[in-house]
């Protein structure tokens, strides 16, 4: 799981152009939206594209996105259970 978490952090930094950040700057349990990283709705769309491209996960229910994208830990948990590639 730690390997997946680090990989996700790297992919998030790249996808969202968080240029000045490294994976050690992202708290695994911290909220991604609002406080924490302070991401916004466009970032949420970028994360949906990221999951589909890299892990074959297609999010069809917007309601579940809120819980999945709560933190890097929740994304990693969801990816590990639902990935198709």
């Amino acid at each position: 799981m730690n390997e997946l978490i680090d990989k996700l952090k790297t992919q998030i930094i790249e996808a969202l152009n968080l240029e000045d950040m490294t994976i050690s700057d992202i708290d695994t349990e911290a909220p991604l939206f609002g406080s924490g990283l302070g991401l916004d709705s466009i970032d949420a769309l970028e994360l949906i594209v990221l999951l589909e491209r890299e892990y074959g996960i297609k999010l069809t229910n917007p309601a579940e996105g809120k819980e999945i994208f709560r933190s890097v830990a929740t994304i990693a948990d969801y990816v590990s259970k639902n990935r198709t590639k």
Partner: protein
Amino acid sequence: MNKETRCFVLSMTQVSCQKPLCDEWIDNPCRYTDYFVRAQEPDTRNLIPPSEARRMSRILKRALVTSITALNESGISHPEAIITGTGTGCMENSEKFLIDLCRYGENCLKPTLFMQSTHNTISSLIAIILKCHGYNNTYSHMGISFESALLDAWLQIKSGMIRNALIGAHDEVTPFMALVMERTHPEFAFISETSMSAMLSSGSDSTSACEIKDIKLFHKPDMEKLAALLNEDTDPMLMLGINGNPLNDAPYLELLENLDYSPSTEQYKKTFGDNFSSSAMAFYKGVRILESCGDDKTGRITLINHSEGSDWSIIRLQRQPGEIVKK
């Protein structure tokens, strides 16, 4: 049209292959031998918060930084119009978007690239960041995009529709695009990138403000008629888009042969390179020359450019020292 209304250049700044956001290079500009030279990137951190800059491509950061700098220098915080010229718009994002389209198909595309790959992204982003809700337009007419934007602003100011306008010309060139342009534009000498922003106003608090006297655009003009137009004004200096490539220079030389007088000539493309916004640097250099010509002299320069030999522009600049026309 109100004949009394005039149009002045209050401030301007540039990002190019010369040192950005300053004029330190003017007396000793960098000389390049490479065919493709990218712009020197300005430090954007003081003007654009990192949280906003992270989604912006290079051309957007350059456009925003030159716009904010020109605004700050003009003392006007909210322009009444934002008018941009760009030949190819956000090329870097467009390339990434198309590559993604080929690689992932239509169902899995990044929203930021989708939103920020159109030509009018630049003008609209400037408006969003500056919170300006006035007239906003983008001209994308290849080599006369800047002149088209300038003409729009000039006509609106001269007619009294607006009192001021932020104009800009922005074009970026990617390595792939440079390869394509080498084949499609054999008239270019060396290719580079341009971002130039300027504040125009119907009045000026400065005694050194340069006035835009006239702008004319032509499509496939008769050279003798074009020369006749210049012979009427006999401006002592012509700023030409000569770049040292005979394919580009021949029409300029033909025009010069048809003149009845012998003006001095300046060339700007050898300093700034070719791209679809390069004529904006003629405007920039022309205004700077007039500003430095001394407090007791009236200066006049005519900027002449052509795009692929078919579209021509003539811009006449004049500076009358000691004159203040209140903003």
